[in-house]
């Protein structure tokens, strides 16, 4: 219908559908994300949450529908193009470069010199290291800059990956279960971190842990069988019968 439409939303997902040989993992999904919004997507396993992120970030190709980001179509773009457009993606299991130090991890994500030639001539200017240190500050790793990433704790790895996104200055961050396997303290810290970084950018988070969701979300989307079951703030969702039935129920 409105695949040609221009919206004032940051992200407009319309009629998004993808099927893996017959099985529709995401089924004519439509939702919108505002600028500066922190959206949480919840839903039982196999609801298609991760797939949605895959679709937005270009990891998976959609069968039909449209994904507009700042009114530019993302479908059909390659991952790196989408990233350069301003969409950052964090994976479910922390995906960082174990062999490199925290500093190098952050540096390699730095949005300059991402072409062949650019990376050949890349030099660590003071500007860059300032930026990196600032981010390291935010993700509580400024004292570990020279440590090898593999020596970090699980939680710290999660943070590092978030940091790697921050360095890219994305307008939209896609986070897949950022607090999975974190201690309670770490969760709180993470919540604080996310709230902080949410300023000036939008974030889509997939999360199971309801307390955490409650602590950060300003809007929640419930997915079920690739379809939207309910959407609204936490209170509404909790009140929703069907959601209780299919999700909170079990």
């Amino acid at each position: 219908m409105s695949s040609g439409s221009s919206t004032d939303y940051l992200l407009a997902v319309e009629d998004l559908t993808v099927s893996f040989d017959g099985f529709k993992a995401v089924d004519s999904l439509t939702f919108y994300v505002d600028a500066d919004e922190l959206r949480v997507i919840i839903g039982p396993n196999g609801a298609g949450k991760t797939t949605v992120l895959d679709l937005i970030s270009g990891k998976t190709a959609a069968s039909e529908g449209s994904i507009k980001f700042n009114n530019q179509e993302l479908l059909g773009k390659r991952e790196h193009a989408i990233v350069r457009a301003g969409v950052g993606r964090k994976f479910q299991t922390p995906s960082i470069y174990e062999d490199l130090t925290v500093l190098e991890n952050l540096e390699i994500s730095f949005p300059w010199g991402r072409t062949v030639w650019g990376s050949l001539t890349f030099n660590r200017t003071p500007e860059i290291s300032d930026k990196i240190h600032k981010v390291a500050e935010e993700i509580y790793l400024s004292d570990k800059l020279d440590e090898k990433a593999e020596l970090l704790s699980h939680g710290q790895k999660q943070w590092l990956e978030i940091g790697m996104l921050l360095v890219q200055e994305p307008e939209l961050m896609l986070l897949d279960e950022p607090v999975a396997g974190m201690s309670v303290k770490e969760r709180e810290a993470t919540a604080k971190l996310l709230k902080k970084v949410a300023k000036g950018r939008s974030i889509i988070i997939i999360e199971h842990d309801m307390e955490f969701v409650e602590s950060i979300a300003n809007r929640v989307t419930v997915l079920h069988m690739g379809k939207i079951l309910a959407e609204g703030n936490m209170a509404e969702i909790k009140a929703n019968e069907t959601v209780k039935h299919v999700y909170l129920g079990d």
Partner: protein
Amino acid sequence: MGEYTFQEIYSIIVMQSFGGVSLACIYVLMGLGLFIVFGQMGVINMAHAEFLVIGSYTMCLVSKFIAENAPGLLNYYFIFAIALAFVIAFGVGYLVEWALISRLYSRPLDTLLATWGLSLVMQQCFRTFIGAREMSATLPSWLMGSWAITDTIEVPLNGILLLGLTIALTASLIIFLKKTRLGLRMRATTQNREMSGALGINTKRTDRLTFAIACGTSGIAGAFFTTIASTSPTAGTAYIVDAYLVLVVGGLGSLAGLFVASGFLALLSSILEFFMAGSIAKVWLYVIIFAVLTKFTKGLFSERIRS
């Protein structure tokens, strides 16, 4: 081709297509063993071709032995030789897996190097213990010559046999994989090692058997090859490239792909070879394959899986 009668051209087309079929059979036979080892286990076995050669040698030696000691049996040794080819190749494969491959599952590309070394050693073994000269099996008399369907159409008997054997071998392989317990175990192991292990499948043993059976299959294939080509220590090197290429074109781990690819390549080369000379035909065959693969980088038969 003005100067030829329709009759002639018709019969040539028939014979040419049959030639194509036999070539397809050869590709399939080359690919079957790889399909298991490479497609299922993900092991790159550069010595694959040498297992084919083992089969060929078994055939030759048996026929030589029979010819010298019991010429009367010359018409029937075939079946026995094929069985033996399987057994020997199976045995060697079993040893190789135990001694070499089992230590390298985590490093596929290293397997490539090690098995390359292995293939060199095996070649030298053939040379030292069997001899450097070309060998070939004396075919049973009922296998020689051709069957004249019409007076212009003649179909090679060994081609017909080749076709029959290929079908039989493939069928039994499929049945084995799909129906038997061992086959089930194999597929389970290749699909999810940890889980199968948890379910009490002895994955080590299964791997060993899988590899050995793959080698055995190649052994049989090699035995068939004696009906159409020669056997020499280095005969294998002629197969290895095509064997892998067929598998890649088909799409790794897809048996259907293997067949389609074999047919496709055979058809292509039959046509090309009929209209141009050997070497150039080969070049064009490759070029076309490369072109096709730029479109289907995962092979013709790659199923779309959920990332």
